[in-house]
């Protein structure tokens, strides 16, 4: 009898457990319904309007490709948005109303309104994007005016890899939503060995008689190569003749770090900003060090200059702004090389362009040492890049030189540490999320509280929310939830770290927009 009671109770308990488990599983998976209910219009977090609109952003080139991807994801979810109304003029410029607005496959949690997002180009750069948002620069293609917004010829939001520019006239009305984390490490080209003697013949960016290497052999100077070393010393396991070099067989010390400790007397300042006494101009000053000497104190080699060539980067970019803040001057181009790219500004986050620049700076026609010159130029360069771009796009860190009719050689940009700190991307423990990497930065979308439209708010909220205030639908073309696809785009395809509504302080600026200007229009 007692056994039967026990059996019954065990059976009941097991049934209950199974029932709870089944319910939990069903809740987890989501349950398909017949026709979904039309969503409420004009309310946060979606801010649905019940009609299609176009929105446009402009600014950062660092986030350009990522925002293209996020825009694409958002727009493709609109394929399953509301049922559009043929009877309007023009046709289909509003959703049907009531239950006729939705069918069984309608996605009422993503781009219900069929919003189209234009990831704008125009004058590129975070600074320019912010100026356009404020109307301080006119944009070639309006966002607001074209689509009925209050502000004419301004984008709906600015892509920016730097914080709000407080000098802009509308800065008091700007809110920056940080949706990604990044850093800006310096890079050098330690593996650019080159084939030897760099004569500088045919240099297009050199003053007459001022070719930079005095017709000498140039090896991989950033790897610690010094005159007299084999140009392959960087690949030798050593030991080096220099006890401070435990890395390779070069007799100098590899340049793997740049420091701004000491401010205006720092290594970084003396390379990038200083134009007077104490300026660091030669690789030997960084590598030819022994004993207690530090980079900057090395002796140059008489009759054998090894100039540091600083690549100029487009000003107005958030990347340039971040790195200039690190080195301590208003722009990183103060001591720029007039040889690299013939003195023109290079685009940020792309080392590949320097292969083309070197080929143009030292044309091969009739110059038997052009490859040596090109390799010497590359070996002597300092540049910096977005950490996310560097990590995720191998092409962005490789450059190619033509060494013959059908042969090429590739050199890679190598990330450096800053003040001895490596850029690490672990979330939340890495040096970027912890803001301990000196050039750690946040990637923003900046909107104006006085003009933001519902369609813009919906898109930006869609990016920021992490299935917290609302649950995104599944991408029917992949089977993945859109929230996962956003994370994968930010972190894997483009190499940044996603910040969202649940991210902890101080990286928690990606919060939902709760007030707009046309929610009831």
């Amino acid at each position: 009898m007692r056994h039967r009671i026990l059996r019954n109770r065990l059976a009941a308990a097991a049934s209950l457990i199974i029932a709870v488990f089944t319910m939990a599983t069903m809740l987890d998976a989501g349950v398909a319904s017949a026709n979904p209910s039309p969503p409420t219009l004009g309310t946060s977090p979606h801010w649905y309007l019940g009609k299609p609109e176009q929105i446009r952003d402009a600014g950062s080139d660092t986030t350009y490709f990522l925002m293209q991807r996020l825009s694409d994801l958002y727009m493709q979810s609109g394929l399953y948005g509301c049922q559009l109304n043929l009877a309007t003029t023009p046709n289909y410029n509003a959703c049907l109303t009531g239950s006729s607005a939705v069918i069984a496959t309608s996605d009422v949690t993503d781009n219900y309104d069929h919003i189209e997002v234009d990831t704008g180009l125009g004058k590129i750069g975070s600074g320019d994007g912010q100026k356009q948002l404020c109307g301080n620069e006119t944009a070639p293609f309006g966002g607001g005016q074209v689509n009925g917004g209050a502000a004419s010829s301004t984008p709906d939001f600015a892509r920016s890899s730097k914080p709000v520019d407080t000098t802009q006239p509308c800065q008091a009305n700007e809110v920056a939503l940080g949706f990604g984390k990044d850093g800006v490490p310096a890079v050098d080209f330690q593996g650019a060995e080159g084939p030897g003697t760099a004569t500088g013949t045919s240099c297009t960016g050199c003053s007459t008689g001022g070719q930079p290497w005095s017709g000498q052999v140039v090896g991989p100077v950033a790897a610690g190569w010094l005159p007299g070393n084999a140009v392959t010393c960087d690949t030798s396991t050593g030991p080096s003749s220099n006890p401070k070099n435990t890395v390779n067989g070069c007799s100098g010390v590899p340049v793997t770090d740049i420091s701004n400790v000491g401010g205006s007397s720092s290594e970084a300042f003396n390379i990038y900003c200083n134009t007077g006494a104490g300026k660091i101009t030669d690789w030997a000053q960084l590598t030819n060090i022994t004993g207690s000497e530090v980079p900057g104190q090395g002796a140059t080699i008489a009759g054998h200059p090894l100039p540091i060539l600083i690549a100029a980067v487009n000003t107005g970019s958030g990347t340039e702004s971040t790195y200039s803040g690190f080195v301590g001057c208003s722009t990183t181009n103060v001591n720029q090389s007039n040889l690299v790219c013939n003195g023109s500004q290079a685009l940020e986050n792309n080392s590949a362009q320097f292969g083309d620049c070197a080929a143009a700076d030292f044309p091969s026609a009739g110059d038997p040492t052009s490859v040596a010159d090109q390799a010497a130029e590359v070996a002597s360069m300092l540049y910096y890049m977005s950490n996310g771009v560097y990590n995720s796009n191998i092409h962005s860190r490789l450059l190619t030189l033509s060494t013959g009719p059908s042969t090429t050689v590739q050199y890679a940009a190598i990330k450096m540490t800053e003040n001895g700190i490596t850029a690490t991307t672990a979330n939340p423990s890495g040096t970027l999320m912890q803001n301990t990497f000196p050039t750690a930065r946040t990637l923003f979308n900046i909107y104006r509280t006085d003009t933001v439209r519902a369609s813009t708010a919906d898109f930006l909220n869609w990016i920021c929310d992490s299935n917290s205030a609302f649950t995104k639908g599944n991408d029917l073309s992949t089977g993945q939830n859109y929230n996962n696809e956003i994370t994968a785009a930010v972190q894997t395809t483009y190499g940044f770290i996603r910040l969202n509504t649940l991210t902890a302080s101080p990286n928690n600026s990606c919060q939902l927009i709760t007030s707009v200007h046309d929610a009831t229009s």
Partner: protein
Amino acid sequence: MAIAIAIAAATFMVPFGGTASAATTVNTPAGNPTDAQTITVTGSGFPVRSALPSGLEIIECADPGGTTTNLPTDAATSCDGTTVSGGQINTDASGNFTAQYPIELLNSGNSSINCDATDFCVLWVGQDFNGAFLSGPHGFSSAFEIQSVAPVLGEAPLAISLPVIAAAIVGVYVFLRRRRAQPSVTV
């Protein structure tokens, strides 16, 4: 259990240079690592340093069940870019490498994939995880699970924690009913 399921180091024939195939191996320490533990990863069969100026990348990828049939085929859907190795990893003149790699626990709080105490992952090692995940030189480590340093019940997956809580409630209910149903004894 997790260790028992772990597979042997995977070896794959991968094309390189369009002319030859090379067998790559990727080795990690035996057993399951813990979150934030730095492990030594070694390997062989990769392009030599002069042919690989950008070096090697290491990245964590999901491997459901820890089986070779479920090895990832695409970084965008199966790997997490925040785990990519940060420094330059050069091969030697024979195509071997050794690197220190920090393991990272991944779940919905910080990733689009799960690499934790109940979800197997592998390390992908190769030249270009985004552009040539399978078509370029690459190899996989053995599958592993990642142990939390200090497990918290609240972090357990819903499918596990809910039935456990339900069973506990039912157990207490049955125990109390049995006590109440027993006849009282009077002396």
